[in-house]
């Protein structure tokens, strides 16, 4: 029996049934302006991060004229490329009501494998990239298998694999980085720039944007994307509706692993090196981007594009505050406040439905 029931049209051919089942009226709270805003934010989860980003750009532009310098804008995009890519993987997992603490560790492992196989083992660069991709897929599959087979909470699973993958990375690399000169050009090419109206854009940024376009498309236009939302929304309902919940979950973790491997490639170009210590901040930063981007930690609600906005917001805040001459600790403070505001907003929006 196939897992995906074949597309069926509803009991076609039967004559129209007469009569009317006139059920209770809609009870949407449209009365107060606040209620209306809440419904709007509820329907378009990327709206609030979009507004925050535009506001932040305007404010920082006013504070510091250097903000709009092309060199600065291209710097922001480069700073966002890796976190932005990891945030795509994180979004998929958070949409299923999970969380992945191991994204940074998987990315580091994949980047070391790409760099080491190409440099130390002299594997051709394209093959090295493919091997790195496979390592990412396998790492994701390990997380997915633990979540679906052992029924462990994703938080615990990825807390464990975070340490496992980091330890494996350190063992594999002997704790040493692979520097850019030793790595073939193809693998570091994600850090190369081309110019659009004077703004230097790296190929890594382009890859990230392509990934966003592809994944946003997959999530909104394909049945798989819809099933990911359904599983995160209510697992039991999804199961009873005929969705293979475990299969969806496993595929989400594997897809995330693949995206993380691509993130590894971007990271090598950005740093012009593969380092076992690169991923430490990236776990939390990716979660930050997703949460600020309007995706609910409770699953089933959010958008892929929101996470790009979230990553850009964090990048713009860090950059803008630095340009304004404030200490790094204020950047950290600002990001912390952003997270709390974003989660409070999510709670408030969700309360509209209880």
């Amino acid at each position, binding site marked *: 029996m196939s897992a995906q029931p074949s597309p069926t049209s509803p009991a076609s051919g039967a004559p*129209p049934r007469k009569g009317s*089942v*006139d059920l209770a009226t809609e009870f949407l709270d449209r009365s107060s302006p606040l209620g209306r805003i809440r419904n709007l934010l509820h329907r378009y989860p990327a709206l609030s991060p979009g507004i925050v980003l535009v506001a932040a750009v305007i404010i920082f532009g006013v504070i510091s004229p250097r903000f709009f310098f092309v060199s600065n804008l291209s710097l922001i995009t480069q700073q966002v490329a890796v976190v932005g890519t990891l945030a795509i993987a994180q979004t998929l997992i958070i949409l299923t009501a999970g969380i992945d603490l191991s994204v940074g560790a998987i990315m580091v492992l994949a980047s070391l494998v790409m760099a080491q196989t190409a440099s130390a083992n002299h594997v051709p660069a394209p093959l090295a990239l493919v091997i790195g991709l496979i390592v990412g897929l396998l790492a994701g599959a390990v997380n997915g298998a633990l979540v679906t087979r052992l029924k462990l909470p994703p938080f615990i699973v990825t807390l464990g694999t975070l340490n496992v993958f980091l330890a494996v990375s350190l063992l594999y690399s002997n704790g040493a980085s692979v520097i850019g000169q030793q790595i073939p050009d193809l693998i570091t090419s994600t850090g190369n720039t081309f110019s659009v109206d004077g703004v230097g854009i790296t190929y890594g940024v382009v890859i990230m944007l392509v990934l966003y376009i592809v994944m946003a498309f997959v999530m909104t236009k394909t049945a798989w994307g819809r099933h990911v939302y359904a599983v995160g929304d209510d697992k039991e309902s999804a199961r009873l509706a005929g969705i293979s919940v475990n299969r969806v979950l496993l595929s989400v973790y594997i897809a995330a692993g693949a995206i993380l491997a691509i993130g590894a490639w971007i990271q090598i170009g950005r740093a012009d090196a593969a380092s076992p210590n690169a991923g430490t901040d990236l776990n939390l930063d990716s979660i930050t981007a997703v949460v600020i981007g309007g995706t609910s930690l409770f699953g089933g609600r959010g958008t892929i594009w929101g996470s790009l906005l979230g990553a850009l917001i964090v990048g713009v805040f860090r950059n803008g505050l630095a340009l304004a001459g404030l200490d790094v600790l204020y950047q950290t403070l600002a990001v912390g406040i952003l997270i709390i505001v974003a989660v409070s907003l999510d709670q408030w929006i969700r309360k509209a439905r209880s």
Partner: protein
Amino acid sequence: MDPKGTQLTITEGDRPSSTLPYSQPVLQAKALVKTYGKVVGLDGVDLELYQGEVLAVIGDNGAGKSTLIKCLTGAEIPDTGELWLNGRRVQFKRPQDAKHYGIETVYQGLAVSPALDIASNLYLGREIREQGFAGTVLRIMDTRLMRANAKQELDRLGISTLQDVTVAIENLSGGQRQAVAVARAAAFGSKVVILDEPTAALGVRESGQVLDLIRRLRDEGIPVILVSHNMPQVFEVADRIHIQRLGKRAAVITPQSHSMTEAVAIMTGASTE
């Protein structure tokens, strides 16, 4: 692709009069047992559903009605016992197995996805893809067609207040959600429709409309299993009544053979026949 024609045959126009059991049940359960640890949910339950009938299942809270429904539809796998569909032995390991055979269910608690819209819920797990390259290679869903079909289906079922099929389920009232769940089952149930307390959240008038829908399904040749606590409703719509008590089938009666009081007496154990 379509299991209807190939796997099963139903002789149309050969429906029994509503009270007389038909020779072969459409759906039959034999000695179903389901335990949860030490709790015995089902203790050897038989059930027969015949063509052209509404079979009500009644019983006290915890009597095993929902467990029975789940075991009939692949939502739970019985420990032992057999399921037969039109004279063929079947085994449902997952809900989609039962759906595959045209058995659709409204589970107690509805099992709808709140964040998804009405059309997405109706087609959840059986999305229609676009024709050609976009559908087969890019796997794009034909959202427009699904919405149009959903709208048409709701109109056909006479569910008129659900005008906008792009509204998320969580924006609907309890009764409207129930209507979506019932509509999904009615729309896709080509062999059997099973409803576990489908009128629990509905007002008097709305309940009456669901009962109308149940009758229409039966008249279209689709037998219905209805779980309900509402005795007047059961006696109004059912052809036969399966009484579940303490995980067992206590009796099968008809609204003609027994009164409501007698049915309640069997349900509570005050009487056995």
